[in-house]
């Protein structure tokens, strides 16, 4: 692996227990600027919990998160968001009954000017124009961005909108939870391509995925979780799928 830039996110000794269940135990994780890190592991290996801690959705039981060297405590997703960390949740990324424009700006609506702002009136026109421009930049083609609920879009289109939403607000890091799990071959390819374009904008990506070919194709670095612990942290280049599978099922432990 070539020289990794100074990691801007440093997670140290992160643990989380749910009652007797040890979801995550003493995990360290670094994320460099512009880096794509994949977190893999079997069901229940703790990767989702680890990622939810980083996104602010779950408070860590122990450990420390530093962003740009500053220790941070996330009390909710908004705290992570304020630092430029956006998350695409697997099933809860979008509101199916809202259109693309409303989804892109949900919680961060562009307001009208003057008295309209005071009345809480949004500027649909501004949001529509910015949404169109943003989607064009990411080369996402969806004709009906206004007035059509995203629930009536295809799975690939919905995932594209979710990524566009995260990419629009993430200045530093985009976290993707199983972005290709529900997609067909061609749509998965499009989503991976889109993730690369987001990275080209200088945004780091953490991706959770079960689909190892996608992981190997996209990631710079792969972190393997096993029973709540990090058992491997490797450069993706040169790693084979079989090696990953051995690590995931716990045949082999290796920390690079």
């Amino acid at each position: 692996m070539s020289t990794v830039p100074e990691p801007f996110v440093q997670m140290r000794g992160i643990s989380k227990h749910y009652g007797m269940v040890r979801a995550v135990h003493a995990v360290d994780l670094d994320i460099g600027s512009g880096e794509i890190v994949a977190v893999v592991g079997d069901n229940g290996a703790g990767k989702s919990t680890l990622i939810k801690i980083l996104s602010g959705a779950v408070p860590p039981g122990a450990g420390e998160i530093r962003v740009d060297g500053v220790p941070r405590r996330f009390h909710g997703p908004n705290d992570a968001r304020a630092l430029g960390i956006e998350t695409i949740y697997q099933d809860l990324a979008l509101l199916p009954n809202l259109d693309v424009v409303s989804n892109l700006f949900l919680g961060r609506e562009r307001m009208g000017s003057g008295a309209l702002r005071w009345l809480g009136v949004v500027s649909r026109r501004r949001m529509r124009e910015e949404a169109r421009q943003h989607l064009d930049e990411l080369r996402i083609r969806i004709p009906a961005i206004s007035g059509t609920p995203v629930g009536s879009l295809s799975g690939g289109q919905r995932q594209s909108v979710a990524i566009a939403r995260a990419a629009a607000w993430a200045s530093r890091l985009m976290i993707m939870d199983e972005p290709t799990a529900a997609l067909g071959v061609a749509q998965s390819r499009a989503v991976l391509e889109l993730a690369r374009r987001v990275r080209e904008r200088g945004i780091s990506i953490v991706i959770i995925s079960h689909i190892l070919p996608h992981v190997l194709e996209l990631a710079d670095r792969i972190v393997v979780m096993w029973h709540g612990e990090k058992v491997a942290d490797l450069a993706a280049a040169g790693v084979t799928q079989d090696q990953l599978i051995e690590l995931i099922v716990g045949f082999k432990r290796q920390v690079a």
Partner: protein
Amino acid sequence: MEASSTGVFDADGVEVVAETATSTLDAPARRWTSGWRSFLLRPEMGLPIILLLLCIYLSVSSQYFLEYQNLLNITEAMAVVWIAAAFATIVMIGGGIDLTPVTVMVVAGIVCLHALNLGLPVPVVVLLALLAAAGIGIVNGALIAFLQLNPFIVTLGTNFLFTGLAYVATDGNSQLISSVPFSKIGQSTLPGRIPVSTAIMLGAFVVGFFLLRATRFGTHVFAVGGGEDAARLSGVRVRDVKMRIYILSAVSAGLAGVVQASAGGSVAPYAASSSNDLLTILAAVIIGGTALTGGRGTIVGTFVGILLLGTIANGLVLKNISSFYQPVVTGAILLIAIILDEVRRRLQPTQ
């Protein structure tokens, strides 16, 4: 899948995808709104058509129907109750339900009665009534938003609670309100003989429409109704939104209560427990195409819904049919409306 998904609507929505055979297998998002059949099946289209047919029938079969005064009668008859219906729509779109509007109306009326007896000026009286209503809204909202209790059960409880208190406060008797300036609110008319109560109702609908369509609050109401967890993760302050929804609902009901007390010149606690008005409000909202599950609905739909119910009531009078048939027709329309809604949903491509 149909093979007709040509360039108009790219099946994948992402440019880099090659036109492969597999991509068309993934549910192409077809614009189901195109085509006149789907157009007529849209929830916002069914009602106006039924209303239009009814109006045509009534204007042909009765010489009085299109008379200006009769058209005013249609709106005036139920205007008071409908003031609350606009905001009941917002509650339901937000995924909740409010069973207290009629109770709040009575409570607001009782507050008016006592405030007037104290000799307070009418604007202060109205303000106090609206504040009392807002108080009930805050109780509902706090229990639903902060304790995350089920809105049906919470408002069922507060409905009983405040209805009981209304009985206690009035000894169960109807009480007369004799203030002349207060009676002006509900009994005077605007230019064009438009009753003030009708104007207030129209105002309530305009405000409700504006809130839902134009404001951030409106978008967040739809978001909360569409999926609370997703809305929260998107940065919507779900608790604030719910709080506001129930306060708005209660204040609009309080306003309706002021108008009712003024127009009727009395307050009757039994109006809160014996009235069918609550169920009629909920029926109008659902007939208007708002989903009981939240996330979908329109204020305009509710408005057309109440016009339909009002026109039917009026038509029964004009055709000299017993008004006992009114709930029969309301029930039938409610059932037809939800059947049409279900048919429409099944015609939509599944996700």
